């Protein structure tokens, strides 16, 4: 044990050096730019504050995204141009169409349920007594702390199915039997409902996120707004719909957007629960399989581009929202 600790000292030293170095450099830069008077400060400040992020994002995401777009017009080994063939495959192959349909279901259902559930829970939890609130939030937040692989272990113990002549290991199957069903369905095979059973896992994970962020936002609603609403005689549900929700609209959209993007990229759950079999594959999972298991780099890249495109309406909506917020301010 002591040996392990001694061994790890250099690692912590590296870490500290890194952190100290980073903050020293950033701190000095911020301080130095802060000293500059007059019009020169503003552009320099923008460069210092925004530059590092832009650099990281350009190298780590912009270039890879451009590369992916280029590869999506090439064949499986990226040696020849194939035009829109890969896209043609995605939109005409029945298996792929099913993948697109599943993804559509995911992005419609999972983010709305997570966000709505998080919102309702946050309003109720806000009214609970201190300790109860903390416990409730912690329990619902708990799944966030579990990796997706851990989550699939956990949910395997819920959906597992065996023939009724043997003892069940899955809680869900057993519960259905307790309620008098002789032979529960094999949930994971039950098309198309198996998609919803997988979505349940995502909702289970993301509701905690929605709850925590929304509840913080509700508590931040200024007192005077609530006071005014109370004086106007707004009752509970009315106050919720006409005061609380509009006041946190910005956060609501941020939460919904974040979960929606997480859902678009969902891949671990599907990979570990079904491997994309039984008509449960989604775009992100198919992208991974095509690119890294089957080495169809072209098709995999085209699927990634489909993800990029899918997010465009969301960007548009967020832009409108931001403009609106600015004009109100």
């Amino acid at each position: 044990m002591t040996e392990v600790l001694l061994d790890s000292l250099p690692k912590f030293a590296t870490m500290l050096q890194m952190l100290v170095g980073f903050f020293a450099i950033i701190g000095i830069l911020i301080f130095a730019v802060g000293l500059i008077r007059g019009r020169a400060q503003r552009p320099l400040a923008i460069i210092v504050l925004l530059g590092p992020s832009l650099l990281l994002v350009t190298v780590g995401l912009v270039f890879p995204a451009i590369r992916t777009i280029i590869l999506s017009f090439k064949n499986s080994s990226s040696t020849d141009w194939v035009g829109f063939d890969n896209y043609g495959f995605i939109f005409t192959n029945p298996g792929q169409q099913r993948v697109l349909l599943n993804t559509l279901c995911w992005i419609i259902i999972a983010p709305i349920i997570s966000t709505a559930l998080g919102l309702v829970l946050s309003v109720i939890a806000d009214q609970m007594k201190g300790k109860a609130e903390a416990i409730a939030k912690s329990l619902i937040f708990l799944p966030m702390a579990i990796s997706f692989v851990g989550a699939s272990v956990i949910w395997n113990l819920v959906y597992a199915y065996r023939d009724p002549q043997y003892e069940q290991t899955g809680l869900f199957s057993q519960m259905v039997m307790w309620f008098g069903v002789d032979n529960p369905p094999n949930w994971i095979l039950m098309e198309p409902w198996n998609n919803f059973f997988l979505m349940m896992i995502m909702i289970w994970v993301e509701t905690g996120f929605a709850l925590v962020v929304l509840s913080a936002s509700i508590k931040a609603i200024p007192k005077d707004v609530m006071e005014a609403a109370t004086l106007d005689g707004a009752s509970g549900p009315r106050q919720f719909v006409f005061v609380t929700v509009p006041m946190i609209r910005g956060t609501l959209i941020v939460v919904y957007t974040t979960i929606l993007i997480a859902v678009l990229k969902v891949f671990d759950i599907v990979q570990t629960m079904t491997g994309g079999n039984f008509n449960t594959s989604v775009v992100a999972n198919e992208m991974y399989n095509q690119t890294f298991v089957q080495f169809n780099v072209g098709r995999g890249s085209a699927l990634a581009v489909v993800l990029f495109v899918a997010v465009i309406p969301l960007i548009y909506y967020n832009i409108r929202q931001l403009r609106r917020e600015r004009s109100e301010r």
Partner: protein
Amino acid sequence: MSARIETRPDADQRDRKKVRRAFSSPIASAFVILICVLWTVPTFGTLVTSFRPQADAAKNGWWNAFLHPNFTLANYQEVLVGSSGSNLQGGIFQSFINSLVITIPATIIPLALAAMAAYVLAWVRFKGSDIVFFTIFALQVVPLQMSLLPILQFFSNGVKIGDFQLIPPMTEAIQGFWGIWIAHCMFAMPLAIFLVHNFVSSLPSDIFEAATVDGAGVMRIFYSIVLPLIKPALASFGIFQFLWVWNDLLISKTFANSPFILPITYRIQMMTGSLGSRMDLLTAGAFVSMLVPLIVFFCLQKYFVRGLLAGSVKG
């Protein structure tokens, strides 16, 4: 854990009475309890399974463990000190420390950078700043898996334009934890900036106007006004970032050049065995790796319960 609603001023409590009436009805409470139970039972079942002998766990469901109690610590023993857990490469404790060394900077640095960038994009706007913001926002959707190879190539080849080496290879520089840290920072930026931007932009504009009138420059407003105000927001985003990095395996194993620096998720993956799942060990391993995220969550929980911006706007 310590923060309570009771600590809020009385006036605040009164304002909420009306809403409370609607949402503190028995039905509402029952709903919360129901969701809490639904949300916890699967995890609880797994926790029970992690204490059951392998043969029992394979035979029937975890609820049987209460009818015929038969618990063992063998799974945890195997995970923590058993042959698959510890004998080679320094054991699970070393990977635990690696996880810390990877996660701490990969949480703090994106936070700092995101705070800086979000402030500029929200308040120090310039021509094209919205385009920059929405480009960064859109980049959230770039799948991690598609970025791994180009980033690795960037590290090992640098950037070449024709024969001219614009950026030299960094193979030496990314030895050790560097590659992992940098990659984590890259992937964290879009969401971090997007979320922090939401908080920064909701600060009342009169603060900025007043400070500008007082002659404070762009930089001074950042470190003396914005930074203190968004601290709770940063803390709460920090938790999410911490959890994501802690639970990551893909980035670490792509950018680590030696198994001696791989995180605890690697150790758990090794335990599952070449031929797939050892449920008994996997459940125990999952709980061991959850320990730190849970501790962090409970330590920073006051920010959640009290509210991300509660302390700030009042000022």
